[in-house]
C-alpha cells in the first residue's frame, strides 16, 4: 500500500459519483482527478457544477447531509479509500483541513480559535500550545498583526484577517491537505492578494485543493486545474495548458468568458 509521494498522487479520485438525494440524481458523475502532493489544485466551473461538493467529499463533511450517498467509485487519500467503514472521519479530518467560503471564526478569542483543534486532542502543555499558536499565526502571515491582542475576540478582526485566522486555525492541527472553498469570495482585492500570497507559501508544506470562481486566481496560484460542468469533469490538466490551450470546446468557451 505504502508508496512514495513522487510516484503516487496524495489524492486519487477514481470514477467517483455522488448524490445528495439517496441516489435519485447524481450531483457528481464519474469524476477522476488526482492531486499530487505539495501542489495547488484548482477546481473551476460555473455555479452548481459540483466542484464544492467534490471538495466537501474529500474530508467527508458531506456526511452531515443525511440523504447524501456515494453511488460509484472511490476517493483514496494517501492510498486509503476514505469511505470504507473502518475509516474514522474524525481522524481523516485531522489530516484534511478545510477553509470555508465565508470566514467563520468561533466567537472566542483569537488565541482560543487557533488552539481549538489542539485542545480537542486532550490537555496540552501551555508552553507547547503557545508555540503552536504562534507558529500557526506566523504560518498564516497574521502574527505581526494580532500578536498584541491574542485574547481579544476574533470577531473584531477585519474580513481578510478573519479568513487568515481560519487558515491559521486549520494549519494548527498540522494537516497534510488543506481544502479551500472559495476562500477569497468574501474578501476585497487587497485581502485577496494577502491570502493568495499565503497560499503560495503554504504549498511548500501542504497539498492544497482550492475551489474558485476567479479564473485569474486559478492561473495565479494553481499548478493543476480541473474544469467541471454540470457535475462532470470536462478537463483536467496543468493550469497553463488548460488556460492557454484548452482541449475541450466547453473549456475554451468558459475560460474565454463566453459563458458562466
Amino acid at each position, binding site marked *: 500500500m505504502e508508496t512514495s509521494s513522487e510516484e503516487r498522487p496524495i489524492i486519487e479520485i477514481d470514477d467517483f459519483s455522488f448524490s445528495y438525494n439517496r441516489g435519485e440524481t447524481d450531483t457528481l458523475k464519474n469524476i477522476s482527478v488526482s492531486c499530487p502532493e505539495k501542489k495547488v489544485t484548482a477546481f473551476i466551473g460555473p455555479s452548481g457544477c459540483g466542484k464544492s461538493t467534490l471538495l466537501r467529499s474529500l*474530508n467527508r*463533511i458531506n456526511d*452531515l447531509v*443525511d440523504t447524501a450517498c456515494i453511488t460509484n467509485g472511490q476517493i483514496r487519500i494517501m492510498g486509503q479509500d476514505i469511505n470504507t467503514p473502518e475509516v474514522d472521519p*474524525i*481522524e481523516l*479530518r*485531522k489530516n484534511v*483541513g*478545510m477553509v*470555508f467560503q*465565508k470566514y*467563520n471564526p*468561533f*466567537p*472566542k478569542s483569537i488565541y482560543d480559535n487557533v488552539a*481549538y*483543534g489542539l*485542545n*480537542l*486532542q486532550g490537555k496540552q502543555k501551555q508552553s507547547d500550545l503557545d508555540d503552536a499558536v504562534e507558529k500557526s499565526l506566523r504560518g498564516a502571515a497574521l502574527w505581526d498583526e494580532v500578536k498584541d491582542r491574542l485574547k481579544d475576540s476574533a*470577531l473584531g478582526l477585519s474580513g481578510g484577517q478573519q479568513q487568515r485566522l*481560519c487558515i491559521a*486555525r*486549520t494549519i494548527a*492541527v498540522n494537516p497534510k491537505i488543506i481544502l479551500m472553498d472559495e476562500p477569497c469570495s468574501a474578501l476585497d482585492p487587497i485581502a485577496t492578494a494577502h491570502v493568495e500570497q499565503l497560499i503560495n507559501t503554504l504549498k511548500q508544506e501542504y497539498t492544497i485543493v482550492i475551489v474558485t470562481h476567479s479564473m485569474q486566481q486559478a492561473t495565479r496560484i494553481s499548478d493543476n486545474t480541473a474544469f467541471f460542468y454540470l457535475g462532470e469533469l470536462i478537463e483536467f490538466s496543468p493550469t497553463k495548458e488548460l488556460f492557454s490551450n484548452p482541449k475541450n470546446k466547453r473549456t475554451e468557451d468558459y475560460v474565454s468568458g463566453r459563458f458562466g
Partner: protein
Amino acid sequence: MSKEHPFINKKQFSFLGLGKQDAIKFLFGGNALISIIALILITLFLAKESIYFFPDYQSNLNIYRKSGKEFADYAENQLKYQKEIKSLVTQVKQYELFHQAGVDAYIPELFSTMKTVAIEKMTSELLAVKIAKNRITSKEIIWDIWSEGSPEEQAQMKAQKAEFSQNLIKTQEALTAKINKIAPSIKISTLSPQFQKKAYEVQRQEPSAIKTLQEALISYFSNYTVSTKTPDFITQSSRSGVEKRTVLLQTPLFSNLSQVEKELTETYLPFNAFVEKLRDHALLVSIRAESFLSAADRKKAIEEGIPEASPEKKKKLLIDLKRLITEDQDYGQQAEVLYATLPEHQELLSKMTSSSHAIFPKLPNINEFENKGARRIHKKLTKLLKDYDAFMAQQRSNMESWRHDQTIGFLKTLGGFVFGQKWISNSSWHNFFGLAPLFGGSLFITLIAITIATPFAVGGAIYVNRIASKAEQNFIKPIIEFIQAIPSVVLAFLGVVVVGQNILKLSYIPWLEWLPGFPASGEQMMLTAGVLLAFMAIPTMFTLAEDAINNVPKSYTEASLSLGATRLQTIFNVIIPSSLSGVVAAILLGFGRIIGETMVVLLVAGGTIDWPTTWTDPVHTMTGIIAQSTGEAAPGSIQYRALFLVGLFLFGISLIINSLAQNVIKKFGSKH
C-alpha cells in the same frame, strides 16, 4: 389644460386632514399604545389596592402590642416549646414502639382494609352467595319438618336440598374465580391514602407482606360459604401485636419514655393556666381596641347618613350612634395588669425549667433507638433541649423589656410583611400577614422545577437541532410543544393521582432512605409540584433554547468538524458556548413561567404555610394563597389588601425576570 405630471397622486384619500398612510400608522400605533396603557393601569390598580395595606397592617400590629397579645405570646412560645418537647418524646416512643413490635401491629388493620376493597369490587358475587345462603336457611326448618314425611316428599326435599346446595357451590365458584382475578390488583396504591403510609411501612419491614395478605384474601373468600373466620395468622398477629406491645412497654427503654412523657406533661400544667389567663386578658383588650377602631369609621358613616335619612330611620341611627364605643380604653391601665404578672411568671417559669432539667437526663440515648424515624425525631429533640435555656431566657427578657406604648413604625411593618413567618387569617387570636413562607414555597418549588426541567429542555433542544434526523425532528418537536396545550388543572389531576403517589412510593424504598426528607409524609409536597411544573416549563424552555441553538451558524459546526472534532466536542465547545445567552434567557423565562403558575401548586403543593426545610415538605405559594383566599376576603379588608400586595410582589418578580431575560439576549445574543 396642462397634463398632470405622472408622479402626482390624482386622488388623495383624506379624513380629518389625515392621509391613508397616517391612518395606518395610527391604527398600529394605537394598538401598541393600548397595551402600554393597560400595563400601566394594571400596575396602578395593584399598587392602589395594596398600598393601603401598610397603614392597616401597622395598626393591626400596634393593637397586637398595645393589647398585650405580644406579651402573652412570649409566654405562649415558652409553653409551646415545652409542649413540643413532650410531643417529640411521644413521637419517638411511637415510632420505636411500632418498629420494635414489627409488622404484626399493622397486619390486622391492613387485612381488613384490603378486605373492604375486595368486597367493594365483588358486590354482585357476594350478593349471589348471600341469596343462595338465605334460600337454604329459610328452607332448613321445612326440610327438618318434612324429613319424616312420605318417601315421595322426602325425595322431593332431597332433590331441592341438592339443588340449593349445588347453587351455593356455584356461587362460591364464581366468587373464588373473581377473587383470584382481582386479588393481585389490590395493592398499596389502591388503598385509601391514610392507610398507604402504614402499608408502605409494612412493606418496608416485610417485603412479602402484601403478597401474603393477597393470598390470605384469596383463601378467605375461597372458603366464604363455609366459614367467614379471619385467617389464623391475622388473628394471631393481632394478638401477638398486642402482646408484643404490652411486653415492650415493660422494657426499660419504653417504661422510661412513658415516665418522661408523663412527668413532662406535669411540668407545664400550672404554666398553661397562667398563659391562658394572660391570653384571655389580652384578647379582651384587643377586641375592645378593634371595635373602637371600627367605631370611628362607623360613626362617620352614620353621621353622613343622618341628613338624608327619614325621621324614623334617623332615630334609629342616633341610637346606634350612642351605642358606639367612642372613647378609647386606657391601655396603660390594662398593661399594668400584665406588668404585674411578671413575678408570677418568673416563679412558674423557674419551677417549670428546673423540674424539666431534672427530667431531661432520663431521656434514653439516641443509640438505644433502632428506627430511623425515631432517630430523626430524637435528633430534633436533642436540638430543642440544647437551645432550651437560651430560648426560655430570650422569651423572658422579651417580656421584661416589653412596653405597650412603643408604637410600631413603618419600617417594622414592612419588615413584618416581608420577613414575617406567619400568614394567618380568620384567626381567633390574631391575624398575621408574613410573606416569607409563601415566598419560600414559590421559590423552592421553582428552583426544583428549573433544576429538573433545564437538562431535559436544553438536552432535548440540542438533540433535536443538532443530532436528530429530519424525521425525528418532525416527530419530537410537535410533541414537546403539545405539552403546552395540556390545561394545567388536568396536569394537576395527574399530579395528585400519579406523580404524588409514585414519589411517595419511591420515598419508602429502603435503599433511598438516605435522601433528605425521605420517607415523605404525604403525596402533596414541594417535590411533586416541582416535577409537574418542570413538565409544564419544558415546552417553553425547549422552544426558546432550540431557537437559540438554531441561531448558531451551521458553519461553526462545519469548521469544528473540519478541525477533527467529534459531534459531542462540537456541541460542548462551540454550540453551547455560542448559544449560552439564549439558553440562559430560556431558563429565565421558564422561571418566570413557573413562578406564576397557580393551579398545579394549589392542588399538589400541600397548602401548609411554613418555611420549608426539605424538598418533601408541603408548602403554600404566593399564587396559591391568592387563588385560595381572594374569595373569602372581604373587599377593603386587611387580608384583601395583603393578597393584592402579594400579587404586586409576584408581578414585580415576573417583570424583573422578563427584563433580565431580555437584557441577556440583547447584551450577548447577537454576536454572530
